[in-house]
């Protein structure tokens, strides 16, 4: 990209701000998840974790196109989107630690992050379940004319659930402001697409509902952001849902902190191209190195503070057990 070549140009200055914003979100997510992976073996997090490492560029690209009044719907692999949408980091880590100050008061865990203030719809651990719920938020946005839109993140596996087709049809029929973002990492747990999809003609299929689709295969955060921005503009103009399929790769095991190329179900070579074009590293390279260093200090401190907050904050007590069963 040529946009950083001349730092005097005001247009480039603006772009630099964008790059920095994206980089900050990318780096923050990566550092948070690296830290999760680091502490995980110590058992401070007594809950299954599904890391987004390697896939952060999708959440970051999409969420950059969103405003506070918008919502994101995330999955159990939702750390990146939670952070990118501005979810409270302290509350997130505290939730993973099972603490009372967690975003779910220790009642959700890593798979059920939520931050209604930041527009993060609570996550579900039952794959696909969040799709119609997100569609319901889009219906409410339209009926209440908030001008808001919903970005609904799903995996490739979630597209196999019947509620995906049902939701697409309903959203298109009612021209709801919802952007479906499929993070296609080629696997559902250890099962590759070939064992689950009759064909890979997903975008084509979605298009038959009259929904505009874009497929991004090069792992480019800017491409994701651009697609999201035009989608958001179209949605705010009342043109109904948009679909984005973004190819990506899960660097770690399905659940847990480790790499798993020794397990035999997928070769390490699959990851190589993705590691080579890691957007976190690439965007660092697009920024002045002092800036990167300054950001690193800042982000490291933020992450450390969040883990310290989680560490020191109190557990719920057993008397809290029946809280929130009913409103």
């Amino acid at each position, binding site marked *: 990209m040529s946009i950083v070549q001349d730092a005097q140009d005001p247009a480039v200055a603006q772009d630099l701000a964008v790059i920095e914003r994206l980089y900050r979100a990318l780096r923050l997510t990566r550092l948070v998840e690296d830290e999760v992976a680091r502490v995980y073996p110590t058992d401070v997090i007594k809950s299954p974790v599904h890391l987004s490492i390697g896939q952060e560029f999708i959440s970051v690209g999409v969420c950059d196109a969103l405003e506070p009044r918008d919502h994101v719907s995330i999955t159990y692999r939702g750390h990146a989107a939670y952070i990118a949408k501005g979810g409270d980091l302290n509350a997130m880590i505290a939730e993973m630690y099972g603490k009372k100050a967690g975003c779910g008061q220790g009642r959700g865990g890593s798979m059920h992050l939520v*931050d*209604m203030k930041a527009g993060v719809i609570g996550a579900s651990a039952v794959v696909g379940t969040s799709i*119609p719920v997100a569609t319901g938020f889009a219906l409410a946005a339209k009926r209440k004319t908030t001008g808001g839109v919903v970005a609904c993140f799903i995996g490739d596996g979630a597209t196999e659930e019947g509620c995906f087709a049902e939701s697409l049809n309903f959203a298109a029929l009612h021209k709801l402001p919802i952007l479906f973002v499929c993070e296609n990492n080629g696997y559902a747990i250890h099962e590759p697409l070939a064992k689950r999809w009759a064909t890979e003609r997903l975008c084509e299929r979605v298009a038959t509902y009259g929904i505009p689709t874009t497929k991004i295969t090069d792992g480019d955060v800017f491409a994701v952001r651009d697609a999201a921005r035009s989608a958001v503009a179209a949605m705010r103009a009342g043109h109904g849902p948009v679909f984005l399929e973004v190819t990506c790769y899960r660097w770690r095991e399905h659940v847990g902190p480790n790499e798993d190329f020794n397990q035999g179900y997928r070769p390490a070579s699959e990851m190589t191209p993705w590691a080579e074009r890691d957007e976190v590293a690439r965007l660092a390279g697009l920024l002045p190195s002092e800036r990167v260093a300054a950001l690193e200090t800042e982000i490291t401190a933020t992450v450390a503070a969040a883990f310290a907050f989680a560490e020191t904050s109190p557990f719920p007590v057993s008397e809290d057990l029946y*809280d929130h069963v009913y409103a």
Partner: protein
Amino acid sequence: MTTSMPEGRLLRYVDALREAVAQEMRRDGDVFVFGLDVDDHKSIQGSTAGLLEEFGPERVFTTPLSEDAMTGVAIGAAMAGMRPIHVHIRMDFLLLCMNQLVNIGAKARAMYGGSVKVPLVVRSMVGKSWGQGAQHSQGLHSMFMHVPGLKVVAPSNAHDVKGCMIAAIRDDNPVIFMEHRLLYPTEAYVPETPYEVLPGKARVVAPGDDVTLVGISNMVLECLRARELLAEIGIGAEVIDPIWLTPLDIDTIVESARRTRRLVVADNGWTACGAGAEIVAAVLERVGPEGGIAVKRIGFAATACPPSPVLEAAFYPNPGTVASTVHALVRPTAPAWTPDPERTKLAHQVQFRGPF
């Protein structure tokens, strides 16, 4: 009814239901009604009639045949601040909605640490008679009673259906609203102004000293008829309508059963792990063996509902089977007694004829 002075007009169940929804929709612009066929000319047996005309297609609309996703849409819209009423013409179809209702609707508030609420009403009708058959007849309330976070209500008359619907709409939790097809034409005095029949209070519908007879949904009417027949042979049955099944007002039932020392639950569903099992178990946990309470559950026969008239008649409990069960419990040593079948028919059922 404990309501001593009948207030309001004589209204059919279906009209009281519709009036409740219309009044709440006028009061609160966030209330909307959707579900298959709510906006057609049959308007769910008339229960949504006029709503489209008054409130327009943004607030009253049909859906694709996609019950699973539509339930999620309702839940999402509720979390986002609206108050959906999702309508199903048969309770059987809720089996398509279980994942959303149980895994999200019921749990959202607790699982998300109190940061959301799900003010959702799920209307569903239990079908009966005219060969509805195995898949258009199920009363599945006990599955929902099993799940913390849901409320369940089964009003048995026009007065309660209005008050319960208004209470359900105003409730900030998901409410499974169980109606019964055969109750639709039944009439009661219904006040015109909005009122709530709130969760947590059962109603002693008719007093008695020999047995406590808990009827669920339309079984309240069948119990009342059984009570009349039992009175003729000198047995006094106290009939209780729990109205709300979750939360369940067990105290009222306990109080009565302690006195009568006999508890019979007549349910509008299967008995295994059913509402009757819950009521019996909860009462006996409370009262203990000192209470000396004899118990019995009555419900659907443990098979799929058959449409052939003879089998269908044998499938359902009715005032005759309720009465003879009570008789056997009250007078265990007396020879079995069954009232004249002709006299066990309920007026509203005699009237009823398909197809629908």
